[in-house]
């Protein structure tokens, strides 16, 4: 399966390599660099590259390419999914997954990679098991280690790999027992020129942070489970129970995890919480264009729309922009031609707007293309689909946990075409 792994940074340096079978020379990455050169954008490097003797499968995360070397047939998604899991693990361990973080913790990284793959086949990818084997570095522990010479490798053996619930450590203890669930929904939408919705979908996740002693068995039920059209679960969720009763029943992993991600059935109309009035025009013959953008709330059920951020890729011909925001700040990068406007909170009484002119290159003709406007926003305390958790119960343990559920709606890929 996976033969070797190379980590390559944005400037094309291989800063880490790991081999699980016999060593593959790093010159194999030349093919990758070639492909990288051919691609105009970093994300346009093909994920699968064929070389005479090997295949390179890569993912790009945090501006680092994780390049796996494969020698024979293997489902590409298998490798891609695994590489993403590696990145997630690093992020879990070091807080961030940057070149610096990896270099600083190179030994832990190596130990992790050693445990995650055996002979190129995934062995332990569950973060709870890994944490039992290799303790994540903390400032305190690093200090203690340098003084006492003790190690960050777990003393006890990885019993988690043997358990029936491999995702949960045994012997978890907390003084404050608490379980928090965040219901986060994202709206993906494409709005056309005239303001009508071309496509809109709601995707949601339930992220959990569970700190409970022992082996609790939780059940979570919804007021309106019918809303959930297509769901995918953390392996801990009992599928049969869901099929039969539409109840989530599970023994939770310890700590943070994604319990469920779902898609809201498309029959339900999606409420679009913001609208955009725009007027972006370029006149023939003149080297100026007009830019006029107003945002407003719509169908928010009385909740405030916050953290609004508007970004738009202006045509290449635009030299600079002289704009005047009624609130917030805007920036225009003359190199990438990216306009961003940090609006903040939308006040329904006084709608935020951004108006002004754009200057075109002298003599350049009117651009053909129309920029699209990407919008990000957040609405607290509301799940736009109307999904509601009914109750959360715990069995198997005696104590009374503290429970909390939070709702939030965000913009996913929310685009307005002009």
């Amino acid at each position, binding site marked *: 399966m996976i033969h070797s792994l190379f980590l390559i940074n944005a400037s094309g340096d291989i800063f880490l390599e790991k081999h699980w079978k016999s060593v593959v020379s790093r010159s194999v990455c030349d093919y990758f660099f070639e492909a990288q050169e051919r691609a105009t954008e970093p994300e346009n490097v093909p994920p699968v590259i064929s070389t005479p003797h090997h295949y390179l499968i890569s993912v790009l995360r945090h501006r680092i390419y994780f390049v796996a070397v494969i020698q024979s047939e293997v489902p590409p998604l298998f490798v891609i999914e695994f590489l993403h899991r590696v990145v997630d693990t690093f992020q879990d361990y070091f807080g961030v997954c940057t070149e610096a973080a990896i270099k600083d913790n190179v030994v832990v990284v190596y130990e992790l990679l050693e445990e995650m793959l055996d002979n190129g086949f995934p062995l332990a990818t569950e973060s709870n098991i890994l944490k039992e084997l290799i303790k994540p570095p903390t400032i305190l522990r690093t200090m203690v280690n340098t003084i006492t010479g003790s190690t960050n490798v777990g003393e006890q053996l990885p019993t988690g790999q043997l358990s029936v619930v*491999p995702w949960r450590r045994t012997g978890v203890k907390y003084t404050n027992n608490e379980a928090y669930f965040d219901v986060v929904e994202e709206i993906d939408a494409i709005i056309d020129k005239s303001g009508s919705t071309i496509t809109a979908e709601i995707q949601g996740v339930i992220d959990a942070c569970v700190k409970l002693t022992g082996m609790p068995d939780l059940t979570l039920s919804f007021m309106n489970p019918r809303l959930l059209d297509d769901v995918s679960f953390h392996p801990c969720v009992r599928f049969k129970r869901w099929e039969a009763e539409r109840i989530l029943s599970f023994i939770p992993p310890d700590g943070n995890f994604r319990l469920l991600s779902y898609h809201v059935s498309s029959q339900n109309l999606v409420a679009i919480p913001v609208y955009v009035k725009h007027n972006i025009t370029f006149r023939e013959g003149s080297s100026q264009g007009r830019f006029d953008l107003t945002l407003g709330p719509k169908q928010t059920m009385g909740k405030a729309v916050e953290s609004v951020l508007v970004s738009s890729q202006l045509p290449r011909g635009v030299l600079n922009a002289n704009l005047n925001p009624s609130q917030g700040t805007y920036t225009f990068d003359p190199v990438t031609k990216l306009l961003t406007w940090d609006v903040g909170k939308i006040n329904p009484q006084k709608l935020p707007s951004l108006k002004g002119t754009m200057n075109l290159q002298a003599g350049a003709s009117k651009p053909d293309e129309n920029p699209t406007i990407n919008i990000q926003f957040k609405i607290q305390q509301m799940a736009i689909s109307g999904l509601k958790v009914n109750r959360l119960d715990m069995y198997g343990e005696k104590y009374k946990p503290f429970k909390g559920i939070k709702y939030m709606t965000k913009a996913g890929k929310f685009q307005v075409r002009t």
Partner: protein
Amino acid sequence: MSASSAFNDDKGGSSSVGEAEYAYDPVSGKIFSSDYNRHDDLKEMLDSNKDSLKLEAMKRIVAMIARGKNASDLFPAVVKNVACKNIEVKKLVYVYLVRYAEEQQDLALLSISTFQRGLKDPNQLIRASALRVLSSIRVTIIVPIMMLAIKEAASDMSPYVRKTAAHAIPKLYSLDPEQKDQLIEVIEKLLADKTTLVAGSVVMAFEEVCPERIDLIHKNYRKLCNLLIDVEEWGQVVIINMLTRYARTQFLNPNINESLLEEGSGGDKTFYGSDEDEDEDDDEKEKEKKAEAAAMAKRKPYVMDPDHRLLLRNTKPLLQSRNAAVVMAVAQLYFHLAPKAEVGVIAKALVRLLRSHSEVQFVVLQNVATMTIKRRGMFEPYLKSFYIRSTDPTQIKVLKLEVLTNLANETNISTILREFQTYIKSMDKDFVAATIQAIGRCATNIGEVRDTCLNGLVQLLSNRDELVVAESVVVIKKLLQMQPEKHSDIIKHMAKLTDNIQVPMARASILWLIGEYCEHVPKIAPDVLRKMAKSFTNEEDIVKLQIINLAAKLYLTNSKQTKLLTQYVLNLAKYDQNYDIRDRARFIRQLIVPTEKSGALSKYAKKLFLALKPAPVLESPFKDRDHFQLGSLSHLLNAKAGGYQELPDWPEAAPDPSVRNVEVKESVPEWTKCSSREKRKEKKVEKPFYSDSEGESGPTESADSESDSATASDSRSGSEESGSGSESESEEDSESEEEEEEKKSKKKELKKPVQESESEQSSEEEDRKPEKKSKQQKSDSESESDEDEESESESSPSESEDSESEAEVKKKKKVAESKPPSKPVKKEKKEMSLLDLDDFEPAPSPQVTPVNTLLSNSLVTDLEGLSLSDSVLSPATIAPSSALKNYELLHRITGEGLTVEYCFSRQPFSPDANMVAVQLQFTNNSSSDTKSLHMEDVKLQSGMRVKEFPEIELLPAGETASAVMGIDFCDSTQAANFQLCTHTKKFFVSIQPPVGELMRTVFLTENEFKKEQGQLMGMNEITEKLTLDARCRNEHAIVQRVTAAANLSRVPCGSDKECRFAGRTVTSSSLVLVTVATREEGAAQLTVNCEKMVIGTMLVKDILLALTQ
């Protein structure tokens, strides 16, 4: 090259960084020391007896390895520490050892004894880790030791150690392939393991070592299917991929009945595409079809192997996995193995994956693109999910575009084109070019929008971006080739462009167009040549070649004006630098300029150059990619990757299914014995017993598999019996009919392969012997229906068409009506396959069947492939082809030689949706011809209506003809009485419908079903308890019988204790919902919910009868 040298430099750079990192270390304070010395101090640290120093040294060494620096000279110093007490030091030493053992084989041997000791440790985790490192040391000398260790570990008590043993197998195999035979033994043993922990790893080993030994899987197949859901996710992927291959060798194609339809849908492509293709391949196709039909004749009707069903059922929940690789694996399994109607379930899950990382999207879209070519209908509901956002990376955009293009059809093309219009304004020019290509493909595939697309593309010619213009030119050229006469103004417009466009491909395309259609633009063409001659020397090679071409063509058509120009161009070309161009010029001069020497060829020059060229077919690059297993690397690359296992074709006949039976009798006592779980040695290799928690599940599991196999054989015999039992009479009737037809057709059609007719004849003879009846009959009727399907008959009793929902059919009808130009083509085709048609179309008077139905027929079949997959879990696969009962309308004796039979074809009657289609079959058994068969004097109850069948002018002696009439029964079972007239006689006849035929199928989801049922309670619900017939106690048989009794479609249902069906009455469209809930001992409860109580009551009676007899 430059890159590699760049990072060589780089290594030096980063190493100095590394040094700086550790500069604080008091012991190795010599920052400026040379490499050699630095390693010296590492050695010192390793030799010290302080663990902290050792650890520090090891950390630095590992950091060196990670950076790709050579640390092999430290080997002796490191290997000494293999027995160190400190766990972290030990682990890092392992890392080092595995990395360098291959280079330092002799020294590596020093460490072996430590691991050998570890293998005997009482702690299972230590045993496992010792085996893991030992097997990772790539030293050939220790192969025997490894072999021994693996064998021992394979029968270890701990499943975790056994898992490690499974992991070690491929390691040893890659080190020494000679060990294959022994390793296979170990694999065989581990395959029998019943724990989820081992399953994934051992299948992985199986795939690497002996993927060809499919026989090892038989006994473990059911167990693997049952364990699958609890196996860890990576193992699931491997197991699912392996089982896909396994199932392809062991089961029959579930779409066998539709494979001919698929052929039809293949025809659909050529139908929209180019006629030329059809002409070319027609003969071949015909042959293929015949060969296939011959093969079909030998087959029994398809009944899904219960093991096949087990696999499909157990993998389905995994579509909900959070792991994209698992979802993809299940999706490919369904695509390759599931009956067409069930494949649809994967679409939703795949669309969900499109929310994931862009690399995942990339792979998923590639696979979706391949799927959409075969199963377009599956993704149509998700069309909008493939809309492109400006933030997508270009490669994703292009793939989405591909999918959108594949999904385009008459109904959605306008929305897709509107989307494309916005894409054209994108800033990403590569993407714009791809969009233009996509528009071109839509235009070729969908005739109605061709002109719209062409106009749109012509507008693009005035775009500022040259790339856009060039791409448009190339696409317009292809489109114009389809109907050049209409578009001479576009050609003129393009001629003007030659002044501005610089992209060689576009220039070449324009020149070719002008040359090809120079007769449409007689004035402009010579002028273009003049301009081109001027700039000839500065053009690119492909443009030069086209200039020569243009010159030659003009010379042939308009030599007066262009003679000198042509000679000038040819002279220029003669001295061109490029070999090809000189060659071409020489060749063309000889061909077109007549000299005394020039041979016979020059006479034909005009024909050679201005031959009618076939229009190009714009095809998806994903066409035919599905011969690679989906989701595989090979599929992605469209080339065979190393180690790729071909997905075998379905077998002609299913291999013996009993190989998968597990003998339980033996294993049960064994398990009871091992529940005392003390012994560690076992004699029987196949049945290890371990003291793990999952041991208990063993016996129940095997018991399960037994009952599985029992029901398997049950259902098999059951279905066979039911085939021969309940329907034997009607089948016999239809048989004899069909036989006669066949004979006739054979007489007529001499081209038919001799062997086939022989085999059929023999089977017919056998049919008469009652004992052998059932099987042969089935195969016969099967082949019949297949032929029907092939001949695109509306009235063919193919069950697959039943499943179409009304709406779809309507849609198709619309399509049919809006496509008059296709008429001639279709007719031609009809005549070619006349043989297969004569059972519904009287050969002597082909005008009997109205053109309208004829067209819609062909479209229905054409679109079959798409629409079928829309209806998830339709009964298509389950309902037997013999489900249509034939009723007698006129007996041979009363009819004086004329036999008339009718059946309810369960097709929507196209002229009037409220009518039930009744297919009549006339057979003239007398010795004289019958003329002008028609209907008269229809007597009906009030409200009822009849659409008469068209008059059959002549029915020669011994011939058979069929016709379709429509009756609106007003949802009652009142008979329709009428007179059947020939030129001499009149017969009073009547058609009385069974209540089950007064409805049409409708597709509901489970939720809809429940909702509707909730509204039809109380008076509208009729419940009856019953005891099921002994042969009808499995789901399959129930479905078969209910759908035979009434024209209902199956509604998917989560519980396997219930079968649900739904339909609507034909006239009033009231819902009819049927539920059959089974209990123990064949007890069952039948519930019918229907607004029309009379219908409900009668239906209950009919279904009761069907289920209890």
